[in-house]
């Protein structure tokens, strides 16, 4: 009975939201594409007209998440680029209910939303989302509390590995040796001295039903993981590696390529945890040397100074970290697999190869 | 207005004693107020609670500096001479002690009524929680209100055998002190 009601409700939502921009003022000119927009064969959670940089990985990640999870969801969003570029008053790019409160409380606000929905007997899913600053660092406590209290919330971290909203400052997620404005490379220092926090393992240690890493380079995989998390009645966590062209120093057109390289070299392992145990990884068919990933980003430019012996040492260090990930999670693929790094993004006429 | 100060140690049920006494007064149709001398004290540390009983609503919220009565749950606390300092002239002081009232009064130079409340509690409950016998003795001495009001207040807080044994303690303690011995004081103060 509930399922029927939910299905009706979803149908109603889709009809109601249509795909048309609301014409709020007489002055607003309807876009010539509006009628086509209204027939897009996917739910649109995050609309055009948001103000993300060209080639923003986070915008793409959020679009994928909201369109996969929506429309029967509500969002709690941490302060950060995503919030700033999607909701500059009087506009919002969202087609799902959205609340932004503060930098460090997205998970706690989501907890409250979920409690309210539970009290009201509604089944709308709550998604909390934030960047790595709001997740790894300042919002970590609230996130940990949310997981421990077992709220039925999907927390999505768009991991672009620094405080990008404030202008590229290092965070707990910034990788070793990356140069940021607060871990700049210079005569004395080779970028960030510390390691990237292994947040996923910490999340997994909360014994939550599902925690995974994903990457915007593999949208099919992102959607699958979002669906997986949405199916769980309880706390789930998804980190989505989302390149920042500005912060990483690369052309916006290369966002996907760079995200893919991060996975292919082993520096960003794609792992799924259930109840604290690794249940699945995305095998790397043909691991790439980390230098292929590093050399296309300005944040690692200092690692390619031939005159500096430290540069080579740091490159080797990063390679060792990638190798460590590959060994730790057993990422090296055995043969060809439709779910490996090469198989997953295979395209065919009529859309990507769907894997479940 | 009658003002009572209860001294004890953390863990002896000092605040509970104050609340029960106030509750008893409320049950007897009086206005009441009870509060601890708020502290962060841990088990064993000296603590204080206050009770006010009156026939009309009580507005003041200051601590009781000059009590009409003192209830002392542990005679060793009497080593601090300031404990009895504020007691109104002619006020009553009830102490949990195995000594006789006379010996105790002589020892501290202040008229006191002794009750082996801890011992009684230990015998009855297996635990030295002197507050209930002391409250019973206090009400017996002052005849401020019937013991049933106390028993009712206890019923709001305790259940089962704990309640039954405490009620037995009330009755037992009432036998141990002279009924109405402090009635004059309370009548005077209530006026």
């Amino acid at each position, binding site marked *: 009975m509930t399922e029927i009601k939910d299905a009706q409700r979803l149908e109603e939502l889709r009809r109601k*939201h249509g795909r048309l*921009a*609301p014409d*709020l*003022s007489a002055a*607003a000119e309807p*876009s010539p*594409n*509006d009628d*086509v*927009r209204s*027939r*897009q*064969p996917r739910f*649109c959670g*995050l*609309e*055009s*007209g*948001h*103000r*993300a940089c*060209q*080639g*923003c*990985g986070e915008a*793409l990640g959020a*679009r*994928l998440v909201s369109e996969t999870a929506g429309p029967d969801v509500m969002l709690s969003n941490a302060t950060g680029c995503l919030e700033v570029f*999607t909701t*500059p*008053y*009087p*506009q*919002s*790019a*969202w*087609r*799902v209910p959205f609340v932004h409160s503060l930098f460090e409380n997205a998970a706690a606000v989501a907890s409250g939303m979920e409690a309210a929905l539970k009290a009201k007997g509604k089944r709308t899913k709550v998604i909390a989302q934030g960047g790595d600053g709001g997740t790894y660092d300042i919002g970590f406590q609230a996130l940990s509390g949310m997981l421990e209290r077992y709220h039925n919330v999907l927390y999505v971290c768009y991991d672009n590995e620094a405080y990008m909203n404030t202008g590229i400052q290092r965070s707990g997620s910034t990788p070793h040796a990356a140069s940021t404005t607060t871990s700049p490379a210079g005569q004395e220092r080779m970028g960030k001295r510390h390691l990237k926090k292994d947040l996923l393992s910490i999340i997994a240690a909360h014994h939550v039903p599902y925690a995974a890493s994903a990457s*915007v380079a593999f*949208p099919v995989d992102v959607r699958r993981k979002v669906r997986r998390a949405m199916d769980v009645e309880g706390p789930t966590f998804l980190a989505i590696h989302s390149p920042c*062209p500005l912060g990483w120093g690369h*052309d*916006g*057109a*290369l*966002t*996907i*390529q760079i995200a*893919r390289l991060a996975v292919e070299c082993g520096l960003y392992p794609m792992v799924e945890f259930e109840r604290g145990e690794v249940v699945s990884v995305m095998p790397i068919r043909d691991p790439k040397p980390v230098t292929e990933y590093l050399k296309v980003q300005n944040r690692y430019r200092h690692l390619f100074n031939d005159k500096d012996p430290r540069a080579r040492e740091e490159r080797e260090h990063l390679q060792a970290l990638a190798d460590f990930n590959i060994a730790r999670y057993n990422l090296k693929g055995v043969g*060809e697999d439709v779910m490996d790094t*090469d*198989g997953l993004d*295979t*395209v*065919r*006429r*009529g*859309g*990507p190869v769907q894997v479940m | 207005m009658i003002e009572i100060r209860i001294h004890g140690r953390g863990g002896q049920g000092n605040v509970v004693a104050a609340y029960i006494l106030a509750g008893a007064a409320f049950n007897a149709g009086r206005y009441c107020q009870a509060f601890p001398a708020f502290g962060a004290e841990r088990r064993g540390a000296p603590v204080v609670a206050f009770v006010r009983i009156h026939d009309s609503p009580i507005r003041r919220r200051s601590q009781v500096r000059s009590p009409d009565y003192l209830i002392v749950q542990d005679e060793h606390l009497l080593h601090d001479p300031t404990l009895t300092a504020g007691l109104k002239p002619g006020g009553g002081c009830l102490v949990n002690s195995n000594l006789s009232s006379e010996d105790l009064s002589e020892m501290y130079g202040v008229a006191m009524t002794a009750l082996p409340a801890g011992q009684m509690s230990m015998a009855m409950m297996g635990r030295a929680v002197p507050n209930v016998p002391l409250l019973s003795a206090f009400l017996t001495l002052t005849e401020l209100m019937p013991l049933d009001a106390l028993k009712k207040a206890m019923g709001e807080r305790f259940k089962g055998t704990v309640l039954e044994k405490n009620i037995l303690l009330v009755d037992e303690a009432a036998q141990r002190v002279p009924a109405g011995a402090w009635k004059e004081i309370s009548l005077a103060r209530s006026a």
Partner: protein
Amino acid sequence: MSSVLTRSGYADPATSLNFKTGSWRTLRPVHKHATAPCHGACPAGEDQQAWLAKIQENDVRAAWETLVNINPMPAITGRVCPHPCETACNRGQLDQPIAIHNLERWLGDEAIANDWPYPNVPAIDSTRPKVAVIGAGPGGLSAAYHLTRRGYRVTILEALTEAGGLLKSAIPMTRLPRDVLDAEISRVLEVGIDLQLRQRLGRDFQIDELGDEYAAVFLGIGCQKSREWSVGGAVPADLHEGLHLLKGWVDHLSMPEAERVVVHGGGNTAVDLCRIMKRKGAAEVTLITASGLPGPDTEPDDVLNVVPRELDEALEEGVVIIPHATIQRLIMRGSRVVGVEMVSLKKLPGKSGRKERIAFEGTERVVATDMVVPCIGEVVDPEGVADLLHGGSYLRARDPFGHLEDHPNVFVGGDARGDRGTVSAAIGDGRLAAAAIDSYLSDTPLPDLTPRPPIPYAGLNLHYYEKKARVPVPKVPPERRTDDLEIEGAVAGAAAIAEAHRCFSCGNCLACDNCWTLCPDNAVIKTAQLASDGSHYLFDYDFCKGCGICATECPCGYIEMIAEP
């Protein structure tokens, strides 16, 4: 100003659509339909990528219709074409090329089996001009077909007793079974072509006479006269010319017997002949050719102009091929040849810049033989066209459309041009000539033949393709090959569709959704129908910021970033 503020500044959904981020753009993505290598290489002008796409969509009939909009005879070309498309196929650089040739054949066979009518054929309109097509070979048939589709009334004048030309007279059944050939030709004729047989140009009619009835003439007369062949003036008394031998074989299975045969030449006729001679019992069959064998060190224009698989089969069957060589001298015993002296040579750039054949002194050697067969090609039979030959061997057209100097209403195509060599090229000529005739008769401009830019292998994004082995093509093993059993089998059904899915869709939209999926700005719109540029996707320039992700991640190189106008 009216009040606009919401309490505490909440915003309504999707109001960002009022903020047109398109103004941020300095580069804009556009769809750029580049020429797929297969298309660029096809002498018939087919766009294989286009019909492979239809197969990928599981619409086999639409695939065939797309194909026959260009080439009406896929069952034939799918058997006889040397398929330069496959040689050019970008996929060959990843694993192996798509089996385009076999898929084309499959489409043709499916159409015959299901009797699919040719698309876009108008009813005959008696008010439209008439066009005469001389010769019912592949070029003539193609011209007639395309002219009919353009609404003209077409009459083919054929010298022989049946249509087909060289297809029928010179291609062995092992390559092209007669039932397939007949079925496809008759289906082509059924679009409304008037075929008049036994009408030989020069004997039964003259071109000049046609002007009374026909508004234009297409000459698809082929090369019916063997080229003169002699080495140092010596001509063996029993000299057999290759094409002549082949026609005899195809017509009545006759072939002179010989123990050791040397064939001189470098085309399909030569290879066909070698194989037939070998099968008929010749112990040694040697092909001496000036061209090279296919291989990494052989330049494309130096490769033997033979269907690659035919070459492979010939080698399988024991034909010896001596590349980069020519016959320098015949060794005669009386009027009979007993051996040849050959010498190595290579085509190298000469003083004029054009490639010249250079023989290398000191490489001479002698091969004993019973019979020498020249297969060095044929020339136009001047009968009836002497005026047009201007003393040359061929009807030299001045452009791909087949225009002849001084004869505005006469067009030529196919082998008669002298610069063609395949059935597919003749079919292509027929189509282009039909366009030119239409242009001439309707006084409209000629179609623009400027090719779209090609898409190189490097223009693709290979992340999105998986390696996948080419479909195996069934083949009769050499020991079981006969005179009339078709050697190559069919690739059909699910295997064919799977093979078509290997197509990269070079330079054209694969409808893979990548641009739609990966646009951070939701500025790619997916449409239900193909948009005007042949894609299912539109760029919403109101919102596209021009980041270029779609262009980078388009697997097919179909999206290009250009400067914002």
